[in-house]
């Protein structure tokens, strides 16, 4: 059934058929001056109080004009109901979708259209501080699972008519609604079009999280060209720079494109502190990234192939520690690394009441006992622990770092420092060849633009300079029109 029928009975039968065996399907029949009518909704998605106060009470209490169904519907629409969100709809597929999105629908016998009302009343979590993006000085509210609430959070911070929210939908089965958000006149129209095109081509049947869409928005690679944030202030800042945000119903994570490599090192706190300290923190994060990626590989490379690089006293200490363990340094580092990953995963997945136990068993029992039993050396344990801690300074890069560490470990073991250097070269080639929606991932460092690089990459300039002109993401050096 494509269109709404003028017969109430047919409409009733159709909806009852579609929602057969669904106990949340609700129907309330009523009579309007001798004409049959029925109101449909899904329990749990709507607010019964709102339905009673804004639909049923006015309908039952008002004197309805005599006439056919069409005339009654018109009268009800114009003179009886005071619901804010109401519209007439004649496509049955759309009505089904709206019903499942928390709308109520009213059919009047003789009228070939239904009237839908926005009476959503499902429970939703209130804004809380995001646990994955903790800030020292930023706002304490974060996105929720309702994309409408999320839109409101963005709108509250950017009171401009240039802010647009375009509607989209993904999921052949789930019909998950999305909002494509951008600043008109700032965001690149090509990027907006490309986002829409890629979302339209999304073949997902069910989309349960923002991460599902990432694979459809980019080609893939070690480093993502799609950012994610749970903070409205961060998303507003990104939109201001010409990025496009994708808000998805059912997830507090908002996707951001284009997303550059340097953004992995930027946090809102950088901009809330004084420039020199923001710059210092930025460099600490760069250092943490290199430490986390290269330290285990370099440790293996130097101790195995190039001991001449180390000062004698340090070399002796390492040699002494290694002499007391049964495994070669590569094996024990690899073992410790995997043990750490297992402990991390266990700590993450274990029930909260048990995660403290996991930490104690992992940190104290396994770590301390393994060293005192002479199974692993203290320097190797120190290297793995340092690597792990450094990785958390750039949490957005945790996934690629986990793989990079392993790659550099193997390269260091096979070819020493040269292997690590070759690995670095491959990493650079990969990064230099990657793009996010036509913008080079490493921009503005490579291709280099001194002005932009010392504005907000290698240094965090003061707000006077930052606000002096736009730094639109699509204007980064090396950017090109998509599809070129």
């Amino acid at each position, binding site marked *: 059934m494509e269109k709404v029928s003028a017969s109430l009975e047919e409409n009733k039968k159709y909806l009852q058929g579609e929602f057969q065996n669904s106990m949340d399907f609700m129907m309330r029949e009523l009579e309007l001056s001798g004409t049959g009518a029925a109101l449909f909704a899904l329990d749990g998605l709507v607010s019964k109080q709102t339905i009673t106060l804004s639909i049923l009470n006015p309908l039952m209490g008002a004197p309805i004009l005599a006439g056919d169904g069409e005339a009654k519907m018109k009268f009800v629409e114009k003179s009886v109901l005071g619901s804010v969100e109401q519209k007439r709809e004649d496509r049955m597929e759309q009505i089904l979708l709206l019903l499942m999105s928390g709308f109520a629908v009213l059919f009047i016998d003789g009228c070939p259209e239904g009237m839908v009302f926005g009476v959503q009343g499902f429970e939703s979590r209130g804004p809380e501080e995001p646990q994955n993006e903790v800030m020292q000085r930023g706002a304490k509210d974060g996105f929720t699972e309702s994309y409408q609430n999320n839109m409101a959070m963005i709108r509250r911070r950017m009171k401009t008519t240039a802010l647009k929210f375009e509607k989209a939908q993904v999921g052949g089965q789930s019909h998950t609604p999305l909002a494509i958000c951008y600043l008109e006149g700032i965001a690149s129209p090509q990027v907006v079009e490309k986002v829409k095109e890629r979302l339209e081509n999304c073949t997902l049947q069910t989309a349960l999280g923002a991460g599902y869409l990432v694979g459809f928005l980019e080609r893939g690679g070690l480093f993502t060209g799609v950012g994610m944030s749970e903070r409205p202030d961060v998303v507003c800042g990104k939109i201001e720079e010409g990025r496009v945000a994708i808000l998805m119903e059912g997830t507090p994570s908002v996707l951001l494109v284009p997303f550059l490599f340097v953004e992995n090192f930027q946090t809102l706190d950088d901009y809330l502190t004084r420039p020199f300290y923001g710059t210092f923190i930025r460099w600490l994060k760069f250092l943490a990234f290199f430490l986390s990626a290269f330290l285990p590989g370099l440790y293996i490379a130097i101790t195995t192939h190039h001991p001449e*690089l180390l*000062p004698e006293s340090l070399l002796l200490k390492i040699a002494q520690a290694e002499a007391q363990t049964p495994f070669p340094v590569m094996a024990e580092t690899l073992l410790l690394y995997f043990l750490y990953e297992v402990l991390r995963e266990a700590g993450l997945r274990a029930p909260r009441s048990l995660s403290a136990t996991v930490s104690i068993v992992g940190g104290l029992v396994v770590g301390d006992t393994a060293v005192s039993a002479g199974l692993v050396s203290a320097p190797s344990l120190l290297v793995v622990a340092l690597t792990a801690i450094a990785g958390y300074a750039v949490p957005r890069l945790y996934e690629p770092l986990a793989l990079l560490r392993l790659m550099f470990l193997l390269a260091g073991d096979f070819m020493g420092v040269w292997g690590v*250097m*070759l690995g670095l*070269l491959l990493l650079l*080639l990969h990064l230099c*060849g990657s793009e996010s929606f036509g913008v080079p991932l490493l921009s503005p460092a490579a291709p280099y633009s001194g002005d932009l690089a010392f504005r907000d990459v290698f240094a965090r300039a003061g707000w006077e300079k930052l606000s002096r002109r736009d730094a639109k993401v699509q204007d980064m050096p090396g950017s090109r029109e998509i599809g070129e």
Partner: protein
Amino acid sequence: MAGRKISARQFFISMFVSRVAAAIALNGRYAGEGNPLETIVSYVLSMGLGFLIALPIWGLHHRRPQWDLGRAAVEDMGFIGKLVPLLYFLYFVLMNGTSLALFQLFLMDTVNPAFPAALVAAALTGAALYGALRGIEAVARCATCVFVLLLLGCGLVFGIVAWRFSPENLEPLFYDGFSRTYEGVFLFIARTSVFADMAILLPMVKGRKGLGFALWAGGTALFVGAALLLVAGCLGRYAGTQGFPVYVLSSITQVRSMQRLDAVFTGVWMMGLAVKLAFGLYACRVCLSSLKRDPGPCRGGAWAGALLTEGTALCAAFLPWAREYLMDTRLLFLCTAAAGFVLPLLVLLIDLLRGKKPRGEEENHAKT
């Protein structure tokens, strides 16, 4: 292939990295022995001569800015012209192969004879192949990063060894006449693939190319000059007895926080070499794409170039008789002269003789 463009700055920085990677590998056995100070003069002269050698390339590029030399030869000479991109392909294989072979020899002779040099060379070729397949933009951007590392690494090494510089180690210039200086000029020209790189890759470069070339020549002369001056001042006659004097220079660096920097120095050198190889392999791609009717990217060219490069390097490193031929300075000089001057001049003359109005026609061609 001309769709993706890099800036002149990126191109000549890449060429700088390639040149420095080749210059670091210069050694007494394959590069001719002599007073390092005279070698500086040789380098400066070779750069001056380079401006003259490059004239036909600039001339052809001015007439046919959208065409690389291979494409121009095919368009102007038809079937016979296809020999030109093929010859360039072989030239890049030879230059890449000999550079890689020198690195293998360095690993085997100087670092550790038991070291799996062939494995390192294969890994280097693999990295370069990955770069060539990612495209010229990726390689050029990466080269900029390597350039920074190279400057930092070499700056650190040069800065530390500068304390050991002793003017007493310097020998008077031209004490044994000028013959070694001339030989040095030939040597440096023989080991330069920048002319061929320009002939093939200039259409993919935008910006102030002439200025870039001049800065490249000056910059490399400064770098090589500084390295050779330090070799002469720090090592003296001892440098002449060493296989790879620049490496020996780095191995005498001692800093408090680290013992020696030679492994790091060699790593940076490797990265420079990989950039050189990647550019060579990308040029191989362009050469083979000129043979096709549709001038689209030819990934097979990079694969074929990588395999042949690896084969050439292995032969030159492990077969003494092959090494004699492949690393012969006269052969390399002839090849570079042909690729850098003779072939571009020939194609330019034929293009002039055919007398076609070039620019508008090219635009049409580029559109197709």
